[in-house]
C-alpha cells in the first residue's frame, strides 16, 4: 500500500493557518512547512493498516442522547464578565467585522 500522499506546500500551510485564524510570519510558515511534512510522513504509517471493513470509533462509550431536565438554575454573569479585556457597560468590545 504505497502512500500517494503529496507533501504539504507552503501555500497550503498559509491557507490552513488562515482557516485556523493563526497569523504566521513568513519565517514561521517556512519552518512549519518543513516540520509538518516530517510529521505527516510519520503519520503515513496509518496507510499500512487495512481498515477496509472497519467502522470508525468517534467515542469510546455507548452514550447517546444524554439529556437533563430543563430546569432554570440561578446563575450570574458577573464573574464571567470580569474576565472581558475590553468592555463598555455590559457589552463586550470587539473589532469590527471587516
Amino acid at each position, binding site marked *: 500500500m504505497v502512500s500517494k*500522499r503529496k507533501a*504539504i506546500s507552503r501555500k*497550503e*500551510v498559509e491557507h*490552513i*493557518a*488562515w*482557516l*485556523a*485564524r*493563526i*497569523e*504566521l510570519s513568513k519565517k*514561521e510558515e517556512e519552518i*512549519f512547512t518543513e*516540520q*509538518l511534512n*516530517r*510529521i*505527516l510522513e*510519520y*503519520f*503515513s*504509517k*496509518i*496507510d*499500512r*493498516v487495512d*481498515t477496509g471493513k*472497519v*467502522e*470508525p*470509533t*468517534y*467515542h*469510546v*462509550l455507548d*452514550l447517546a442522547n*444524554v439529556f*437533563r431536565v430543563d430546569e432554570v438554575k440561578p446563575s450570574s454573569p458577573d*464573574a*464571567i464578565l*470580569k*474576565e*472581558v*479585556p*475590553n468592555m463598555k457597560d455590559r457589552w*463586550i*468590545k*470587539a*473589532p*469590527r*467585522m*471587516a
Partner: protein
Amino acid sequence: MKTRTQELKAEEYIDSIFKKIRETDGRIHAYVTVVEEMALKKARELDKKIRRGEKVGRLAGVAVAVKDNICISGVRTTCSSKMLENFTSPYDATVVERLNKEDAIIVGKTNMDEFAMGSSTEFSAFGVTRNPYDEDRVPGGSSGGSAAAVASKEATLALGSDTGGSVRCPAAFCSVVGLKPTYGLVSRFGLISYANSLEQIGPITKDIRDCALLLNCIAGHDVNDATSVEKLSEDYTKYLAEVDGIKVGIPKEFFGEGVQDVVAKQVWQALHKLEEANVICEEISWKDLDSALAAYYIIAMAEASSNLARFDGIRYGSGMISGARDWNTVFSKNRSLGFGFEVKRRIILGSYALSAGYYDEYYLKAQKIRTIVRKYLDEAFKRFDVLASPTMPVLPFKIGEKVGNPLEIYTCDILTVPANLAGVPAISIPCGFVEGLPVGLQFIAPHFREDQLFRIAHTFEGLQKSRVS
C-alpha cells in the same frame, strides 16, 4: 489522619507545606500559582470545624496540587499559556468541588506543557519544571508540575490530566503513582479541553493507597459532563489486597524497537518479581503498534484544533488592544501572540487533517485504527486480566535534548496512547531506578476494571517494600 484528631493542626501542616514550597520551588518550579492565603484560611476553618466536633471529609486537611488546566473559582488558571496568563476562572471544576467537599486544602496550580500538549513540561510558557531526581532532566509531561510536586513533597496529593499519557509519563519519570481512569469515570467539567474524546483527570500520588483514596473522592457521574458515566460507585481502597493468580499479558512490541534496553530490563525484572506472587505472565504480540501512535496524534490534533478555536483574546484571555483592525486580523494576531509553537503546530496539523480533501485520508482513517486498537484490547482481555509494559520507552531525558524535534517527543507516547484510544484505565507505578533515574511500570485493564489495577499495583508495591529493607 492526624489533623482529624488535632494531633497535628491542619494549619501547622499546611504551613509546613508552604515552607517546603518556598525552599524547593525556586529550583523545581512545579507551581505556576501558589494560593497560600486561601489555603491557610481554609486550614484554620477546618481546625475550628474539628474542634467543634463537626464531621469532616475524607481528605480533611490534605495538601493537594491541581494541574493548571483544571478550573478553580477565583484562582488564576493559565494552562501554562500566555493566552490565559491573567485569566481567573469564574467557576470550579467538578473535581475541585468534590475535593472541597472532602475538606481537602488546595495549595496551588501546577506547571504543565501548554494546553496539555507535550510530554516533558518543556512547552510551558512559564518555564520548565525540573525532575526532583535530577534537576537537569525533565519531569515528564504534560502533568510534570503535579508529579514533581508530589515527588518533592511540595504537596501530598495531586491531580493531573491524561490525554496520551500525560499523567502516567510524569509519574514514571518522577517515581510516583499515576492513574488514567476509564474514560467517563471522572468528570471533565472544568478541565480545559485539549482532546475531549481521549482525556481524563487522574490522581498522582506517592503510593497506591493514596491513589485509591483520591479516586474515591473524584470519581462518579456528573450531570454537567455528558460524557461521564452513571455506574454504581466503588470503594477502590477495598482492592488494596493481595492478588492471587492474576494473568498478565505482555505485548512483546512494548519492549521492542524504540524502547531503551535498560528500561526494558528493569521492567522485565519487575515482572519476574510478580511471578513470585503467583502472578502469571505471558508474552503476546501486538503488530501495528506505531500506527496507533500516528492515529492518536491525528485524532488529538484534530480535536485540539476544534477545542482551541474558542481562544480569541476578545471575550477572555490575553489579546492586543484592537484599534482599527478588523475581527479576523485581531483574532489571528491574538492567537499568534498567545499560543506557543507546539500549540500552533498541533492546531494547524489538526485543521489540515480535518480539511476537505484530507478528512478521509487522515481523521477518518485514524478513527478506524482506533476501532482496531479497541478490538485488539478486547480480545487480549479475554485471555488476560491486565496487560503490562514499561510506561515510557526512555529514561527521563535532559532538558532541551528533544525539544527541537517534535517527532522525538511524540514517539515518547508510544506505550501510553493505546489506553487513551480505547478509553481503558491504565496506571504507572514506580519499579526502581536505573543510573539513578526513575522507571515506571504500566498496567492496562479493561473498561471500569480499575480494581484489577489496584490489586496488582498494591501487590507489586508490597513486593518492592519487602525487598528494600
